[in-house]
């Protein structure tokens, strides 16, 4: 629960928690990193390596790991790129909760032991690096691009503009902020027991296109998720939305999509067909 509470602290307070951070400067100049180590090609079982790392107020878990990699053990495997919560590659389990290492400051974490493990629900390639093949396959299966029969995207001369109002955009905008970091996928209990379940990320993307009034493939999109291992395996445990670092709220997308399937919320989409047909004429 403490780790969860510290997530809440980050989410609910815009400013810095100054009291906590100043005590950090006084008393905790060094933290103990516990890093999960396993190379499945060589090792039968995993173990944790411990590193003492100096930290500042602004040090992130990724900074600390990179310090350990640079000065203490070059063989630690980590995946990262942007260091600013944009690329989605540094997801890992930090003190029990899936988080982005570059988006988690050491000063937000209670205690001075930081345990880093690979994301659950992703097979381990090495150390903290998981295999995202299944995750990306699920995303791809949602056909994450606009379908519109009335607009020819091959013939340049027939190109037409898709016009949307700001309100139209807000129907799907938050879902398009997804950086495919997989935190939601690793927090989801249904993914944990069913590899064929698309998971929160993919299902939220299915809704993103259903809610987009440029897209006219609602029915076929619903068919993709409406099957035995599909959307019905979501039980609204809400954990995906708790851990999502970008405010996507995948649980919202999934429940709204299910609303479409049971015909409760069909009015929140103006049909792309008529709109673009009209546009084509002008």
């Amino acid at each position, binding site marked *: 629960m403490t780790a969860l509470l510290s997530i809440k602290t980050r989410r609910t307070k815009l400013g810095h928690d100054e009291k906590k951070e100043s005590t950090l400067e006084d008393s905790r100049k060094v933290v103990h990193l516990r890093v999960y180590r396993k190379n499945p090609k060589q090792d039968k079982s995993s173990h944790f390596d411990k590193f003492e790392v100096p930290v500042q107020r602004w040090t992130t878990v990724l900074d600390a790991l990179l310090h350990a990699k640079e000065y203490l053990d070059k063989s630690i495997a980590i995946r990262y790129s942007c260091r600013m919560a944009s690329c989605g590659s540094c997801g890992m389990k930090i003190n029990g909760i899936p988080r982005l290492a570059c988006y988690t400051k050491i000063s937000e974490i209670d205690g001075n032991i930081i345990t880093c493990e690979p994301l659950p*629900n*992703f*097979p*381990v390639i090495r150390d903290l690096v998981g295999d995202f093949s299944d995750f990306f396959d699920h995303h791809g299966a949602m056909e994450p691009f606009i379908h519109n029969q009335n607009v020819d995207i091959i013939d340049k001369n027939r190109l037409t503009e898709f016009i949307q109002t700001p309100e139209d955009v*807000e129907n799907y905008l938050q879902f398009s902020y997804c950086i495919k970091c997989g935190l939601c996928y690793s927090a989801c209990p249904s993914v944990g027991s069913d590899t064929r379940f698309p998971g929160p990320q993919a299902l939220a993307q299915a809704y993103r296109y259903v809610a987009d009034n440029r897209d006219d493939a609602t029915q076929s999109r619903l068919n993709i998720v409406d099957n035995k291992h599909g959307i019905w395996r979501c039980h609204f445990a809400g954990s995906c939305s*708790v851990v999502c670092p970008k*405010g996507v*709220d995948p649980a919202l997308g999934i*429940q709204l999509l299910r609303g479409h399937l049971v015909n409760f919320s069909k009015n929140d989409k103006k049909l792309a067909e008529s709109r673009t047909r009209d546009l084509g004429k002008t």
Partner: protein
Amino acid sequence: MKSSNEDRIYSDGNRRENHEGLKAWLNPSRYGWERISYWLQRLTGVFLLIYFVGHVIETSSLVDGKDAWNAMLELTQTTWGHLFLILVIGTSTFHSANGIRLLFTETGRGLGKPGRPDYPYSPVSLNYRQKSGIWIALILAATAMLYGASILFAGE
């Protein structure tokens, strides 16, 4: 297009490796109230299923005559029998009340609308309106259990 197993970099090609499995359900402590609701709904659901099987066996004893039926009823007249019935009252109350909440939330009602996400992102679907449904279900269950206990144990 699916990646084939040969495309996978990890050693044994086992897609289930590192998946949480049943552990994800067994530990509801890490992700807030909705996760607890998910855990309790299934726990109470499975309990009720077992209860219903037992209930059918119990009532079918009527076929064997009055004595058999009375012998069955005796089972519920013990302290353990009372405690079991109180558990049935609590689980069925929670399961029905939270089940009604889930019928709404799982079809997208009461969760709020998508909007422009701003830092610090707070997901609208985890709002207090729907969360309070879990607390109401828990309070109703506790009240029903207390009321049941007051009646069942009154005669002793």
